[in-house]
């Protein structure tokens, strides 16, 4: 049967992997190509790179990183951050990305999702949703790195993205992100139950049980984590073994 995926995520700026604590105080985690190779050796199922560069001058750096990783690592690579037009999707795919993640621009211009999926196929279009709880069992979509409220309901928005051609949803809980207390399982469950396409749970992983809970309780098809892997707390292999012990199908 299909395995649940574990996806290490790398925030990249100025050619380095960094991890912020509550969106400030960026901590250097190393060279993206080296880290990617290490996660591949540990059995990561996919890799995600988020280009968090603020200045457009530095945008080209991410292309070079993706090119280098794609020469050495033969698992799916997702790249997000600053994707505004179909041309950005094309450029990232040409650099070696297998999937492109669209976040803010999907809200600003939903047609971009339809156009990109129509041109390159749904399989390579991931829509990233940053959601924050606003009432019991109700979550709102935020954009611009979580700074801007949209008034959109997260579940309805996810459904709309599925209709427009997204192949997958990367769902981040802003409430849980960086807290290391686990995913927002209610949010994850609400979105995955509403959709037919796969959902990647993100935001809040502090230990291996959180990853397992994302699958068994949240119903996620894949789980994404950053800091627990970057700073050597756990390996991807340990995460998979932990999940396998709980009867979760993983690729060991």
């Amino acid at each position, binding site marked *: 049967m299909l395995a649940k995926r574990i996806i290490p995520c790398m925030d990249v700026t100025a050619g380095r992997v960094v991890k912020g604590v509550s969106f400030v105080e960026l901590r250097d985690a190393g060279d993206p190509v080296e880290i990617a190779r290490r996660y591949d050796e540990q059995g990561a*199922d996919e890799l995600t790179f988020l280009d968090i560069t603020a200045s457009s001058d530095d945008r080209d750096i991410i292309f070079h990183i993706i090119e280098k990783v794609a020469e050495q690592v*033969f698992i799916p690579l997702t790249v997000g951050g600053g994707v505004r037009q179909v041309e950005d999707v094309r450029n990232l795919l040409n650099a070696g990305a*297998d999937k492109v993640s669209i976040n803010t621009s999907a809200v600003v211009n939903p047609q971009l999702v339809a156009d990109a999926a129509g041109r390159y196929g749904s399989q390579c279009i991931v829509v990233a949703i940053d959601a924050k709880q606003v009432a019991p069992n109700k979550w709102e979509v935020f954009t611009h790195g979580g700074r801007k409220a949209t008034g959109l309901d997260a579940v309805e928005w996810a459904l709309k993205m599925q209709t427009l051609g997204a192949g997958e949803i990367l769902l981040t809980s802003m409430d849980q992100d960086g807290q290391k207390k686990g995913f927002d399982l209610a949010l994850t469950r609400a979105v995955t139950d509403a959709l037919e396409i796969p959902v990647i749970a993100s935001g809040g992983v502090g230990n291996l049980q959180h990853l397992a809970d994302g699958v068994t309780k949240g119903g996620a098809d894949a789980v994404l984590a950053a800091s627990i892997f970057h700073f050597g707390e756990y390996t991807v292999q340990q995460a998979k073994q932990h999940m396998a012990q709980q009867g979760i199908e993983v690729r060991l």
Partner: protein
Amino acid sequence: MVDIAIVDYGMGNLRSVYQAVRKVAPDANVVVSGEADVIKTAGRVVFPGQGAAPDCMREIRERGLDQTIVEAAAGGKPFLGICMGLQVLFEHSAEGDTPCLGILKGEVVRFAHGLKDAQGNKLKVPHMGWNGVHHADHPLWEGIAQDARFYYVHSYYVQPHDQGIVQGSSDYPQPFVCAVSRGNLFAVQFHPEKSAAAGLKLLENFVNWNPV
């Protein structure tokens, strides 16, 4: 002389396939090409594909590559279809009700809506991620463990009329065909170029394969 031609018909990005083939055949002359002459004279042909069946078939026909592909698949030199490059070898796809190349007898159908696993959890479509492959005995599976996992992303799968061509299957939740072969032709639903060691091994077997 081109050793390995990767067929480019404008559907998506072939860089991953190119990189992976280069990795397993570092000394070979590998090209990505949409030119009939290059494909006809190459020693081996890789026929990838992504996107939707109607778009793929339209691009293949508009570029006048349909006959070239049919001839390459029938012609005796090693031919490897990947993903959409497996599906369009068949007669018809339910995706957009699309007539395909008809090299192999059978149809391409969609995974049913509302699929559930044994625990009652929803099975998502596209079928995306790593699934185990039960494989038959064929030179392209050499050195690959039974039930080794390969990376998939697709919503449709092939139903060959002739079960004799089936070389592998995966479960979602019912078994579906993920690999077929006939003479010089081998084609798979998953992406060997994105399937880590198992995928590279299959590609390596392909570049060393001498079908009789």
